[in-house]
Structure formats: structure tokens, C-alpha cells
């Protein structure tokens, strides 16, 4: 049976309920060593350990979530990603993952540099604050933008650094990071056109020059 040719993987099947996890999981090589920063309940790490046989490590700030991670058999320690990487030797991981947490970090640039010090590659997934609904919301209401993707009040939002896809590109260029992969998501669709305006989430894989 033949079907009409479709662009490669336009629709992303969710992994553990999330499309960014699906993209991240494709980037991680089987048998590699992975550090997940802000690993939550350890769901992605557990999946990677089970299905890609990775050596999995995680950092998580919430004690309850650390407990749930350990309950999954993961070696996770309770700590702050802003400070937590300092102890690791250089280049001891193949991949360091930061999923939807960059915008919550106190010192995001320091975190990115540390990720590329301890890991050969950094995989960063972040929400795009440049999405058109954010721009329109701010323009029309004159208030800190609130949208379906960013439903928080300004004072109770965990997001303290608002970055767009273009901001990340600029930073990568300024820091001499080599972008190996850049992938954009709108809902469960891969997006190629006008990502800074239309993408809700971006997933980057970068390494040092």
C-alpha cells in the first residue's frame, strides 16, 4: 500500500504525554550517559534507561519528586541546577538535558555553559516567548502576557527569564555554540516556517566548538 508522500515526521507522536520528550528521546543515542536537569518524577530518564539503555542521572529540587524518581530506580539527587553541576568533572556525560527549565533558571547562561562543560552535547527544550499570541496579548492588553501556553500571573509564574527562539539563536552565536539540531513544535506538529512567530516549543541540540 502506498500513501501520498508526507514530509518526514510532521506529526510527532507524544512520548509520556509530551511532544518535546519525543524529540529529545530521538536525539539521545542508545547506551549513552545522560544527565537530566530538573528531571521531575524521572519519567523521561526512566524511559531512556529502559528503552535506550542509557546510564541515567538526574537533578531535581523538589524532595517529593526526588523520592518518586528514586522509586523508579533512578540515581537522582536533590539539588539546584544553578549550583548543582559544579562538582561534576568535565565531559563526563554524553548528553545533558534541560527540558522546559531554562526559563526558570536563575542564571541560564551559567547553566548552559555548565551543561557543555560536563556534557558533550546539551539538549535544551524551552517554550518560545516569541509566539505570536504572546506578542498580541502584550500589545493589546498592555499587561504581562497570559496565554494558553503561559497561563500564570506575572507574580506567580515560575518563568523568570523570557526568551524567544531568536534570543536562543543569538546567544548560541555569541557563545560560539554549534547548533547540531533545531526543531520546532506547534502542538504535535513539527514546524519549519517562521518558528519564532509560530512555534510554541523549541528543542535544540548544541555542542561546543
Amino acid at each position: 500500500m502506498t500513501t501520498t508522500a508526507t514530509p518526514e515526521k510532521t506529526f510527532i507522536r507524544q512520548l509520556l504525554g509530551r511532544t518535546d520528550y519525543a524529540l529529545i528521546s530521538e536525539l539521545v543515542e542508545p547506551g549513552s550517559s545522560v544527565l537530566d536537569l530538573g528531571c521531575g518524577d524521572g519519567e523521561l530518564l526512566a524511559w531512556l534507561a529502559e528503552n535506550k539503555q542509557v546510564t541515567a542521572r538526574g537533578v531535581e529540587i523538589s524532595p517529593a519528586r526526588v523520592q518518586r524518581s528514586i522509586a523508579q530506580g533512578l540515581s537522582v539527587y536533590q539539588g539546584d541546577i544553578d549550583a548543582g553541576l559544579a562538582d561534576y568533572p568535565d565531559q563526563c556525560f554524553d548528553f545533558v538535558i534541560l527540558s522546559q527549565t531554562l526559563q526558570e533558571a536563575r542564571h541560564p547562561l551559567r547553566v548552559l555553559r555548565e551543561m557543555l562543560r560536563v556534557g558533550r552535547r546539551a539538549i535544551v527544550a524551552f517554550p518560545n516567548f516569541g509566539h505570536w499570541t504572546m506578542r498580541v496579548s502584550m500589545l493589546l492588553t498592555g499587561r504581562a502576557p497570559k496565554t494558553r501556553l503561559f497561563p500564570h500571573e506575572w507574580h506567580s509564574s515560575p518563568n523568570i527569564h523570557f526568551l524567544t527562539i531568536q534570543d536562543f539563536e543569538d546567544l548560541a552565536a555569541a557563545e560560539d555554540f554549534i547548533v547540531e539540531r533545531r526543531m520546532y513544535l506547534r502542538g504535535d506538529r513539527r514546524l519549519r516556517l517562521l518558528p519564532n512567530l509560530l512555534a510554541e516549543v523549541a528543542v535544540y541540540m548544541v555542542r561546543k566548538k
Partner: protein
Amino acid sequence: MLINLGMTVSIQLAHFDSLPLDCGETLAPVTVAYETYGTLNSRHSNAILIEHAFSGDAHAAGISQETGKPGWWDNMIGPHKAFDTNRYFVVCSNVLAGCRGTTGPGSINPATGKPYGSSFPFVTVQDMARLQKKLIDHLGIERLLSVSGGSMGGMQVLHWAVEYPDAVVSAIPIASTYRHSAQQIAFNEVGRMAIMSDPDWKGGDYYDSEPPARGLSVARMVGHITYMSDDSMREKFGRRQRPKDELGNGFSVDFEVENYLRYRGGEFVNRFDANSYLYITKAMDNFDLTAGCGSLGAALARSKARFLVISFTSDWLYPSYQSQEIVRALRGYNRDVAYCELDSNYGHDAFLIEVGEQTELVKHFLANTYKKAA
């Protein structure tokens, strides 16, 4: 109501011809008291060594046939508990220099036919582990699935992992440290001075007369304060007063907390030997995992174990920073380590009392370790 009848356990003794000590002397012969729970599997791959804290003993779980009392970690060890005796074979032994069956200063010196007393050789945490290793070998166990314990038990866990890397698959030090801080040494010194200031101590040779009960009881009172927290003492006692039958007796027991400490102190005298107190606290104070290795990282790098490190928020005797030092050093060598600081008001005693979350951590960590090791 659920009634847990518990398992009845009995103390066992193993005898060895001699034990060389770090101080250069040799103890000969030497006896170690231990209990076991569960069944060793045919591959001998399910054995767990439990290390007791300073004043603990070999009776960690079940109901003692000798005393009728539950073990000191009975809430953690047993069927379906953190250390699940349906799956694992659990061993706990009384430490060297102890007074609960293992050779210590109160034991008879075969050379004189009298208790060692002050002639008992100076022992170290390393010596304690060396004796445990003899016991483990004697039981036919080559590799321990885990070595676990809190406080001084955790210090032994760390030493085991570093000294016998091929014999330790996983290590669970709880509320512990790789070496005592000035504050920890200070409290131990107060306890020792209380004992040594008691005229009944007689330089350690009191076994043919009254023991230094007053000194030992004061030492225990100080100890109990350090095991609790401001919060737990406020909750447990506050400023509640004892019922008074006479007034004007200024230094009587007025407050519940005073009554509790005196009770605990008095009770301790019946089950603990003052010389053991001195020898064991000194061994703890002298313990330094970095000795001969240069750094904590270099020491821990010798271990091949995966680690689960646990600390408690209100523990000011073995504060979380001490556990975090261990975790950070392990990370520095990219070792397999999980760490969690559990929320508790119970202070240092939390590892004995607040076992709900601790159970979840230990249970899953062990199950995963067992699966990986199989």
C-alpha cells in the same frame, strides 16, 4: 486493628581466634554477637549488613527471645518493610568495644581472668568493620547487596564501601558524616567527661564495684538533647510541669523534659557500659574517611558501590551539609549516587522514627540494585 506479632529472634555468637587492631595490638580471642533475619538465597546475593548507631546493638528487628523487646529498627526491617526480609537476608552485629555480646572493655580478658577495663585496647571504626568482615566471611557471604545504617552506622557504611569495594554492591549512609565536626566531638567530650568525673569510674576498672552510673546517666542526658530538635522537644514537652506535692524544693524535677531526660539517663545505665561509651565515642571522633587518601573524593573513588544518601532537615547533630559533602565528592568522580533530604521535625532521631518516606527510598533503591546485580 492490625496486630503484628513480629518474628521472634535470638542473638547468636561467632568466635574468632584473633583480631588485629589499628593500634598494633591483637585481641584474642574475639566474640561477635549478631542477629539475622530472612533467608540467604542459594547464590548468596541477597545479604544486607545493617550497622547500628552508637548506643544500638545487634537486635535490630523482630522480638527478642531474650528480652521480649522489638529491635531498634523494627519499623524498617521485616516482611514487606524497607529491608524486606521476604526478599533479603539481613545481618546486624554489635560493634567491637560494645557491651551487648561483642567483645568490649567489660569482657573477660583471658590473660587475667578479669574484665579488660582500662586495659582494653584502643579501637577504631576500621577495627569494627574488620570484625564485621570476619563475620560476613564466616556466614559465607562474598558480596553484600547493601550496607546500611544511620549516624555512626553510616560512618561504618562509608568505611565498608571504601575498604571492601568488591564486597559492597550498594551503600546507604543515613544522617551521617565522613568525619566528626568540632561540635560533634564537643558533645562526645562532655559525655566522656561526665563519666570520667564520676568517682565510681576508677580509671575504668570498676567492674568489681558500683559502675559510674551518675556520670553515664548525665552523658546520656546530653546525648538525648542532641538527638532531638527544638521543635520536637517543644511538641513533646513544651514547658509542661510535673505534678508537685511539695513547694519550695528548688532543684526538684519541675518540668516534664527534666523528668524525661532523667528517666532516659537512668534507663541507659541498665543497658550500657560506661567504658563502652568512652571507647566507642572516641572511635567515632577519630574516624576520618579521608585518612591516607588525601581527599574525600579520592577516598570514595575507591568504592564501587552505588549510593543512596539520606539526611533530615531538623538534624542539627549530623546536619544535611555533611551528607551533601559525601554526595558532592561522589559526583566529583561521577559515581552513582542518589540523595534526598527528608523533611522531619524529629532531629537526629528521625532516621529511627520518621520512616515512612525513608522506607520508600530504601525499598525501591534496594529493589533496583538487586535487579541490576542479578
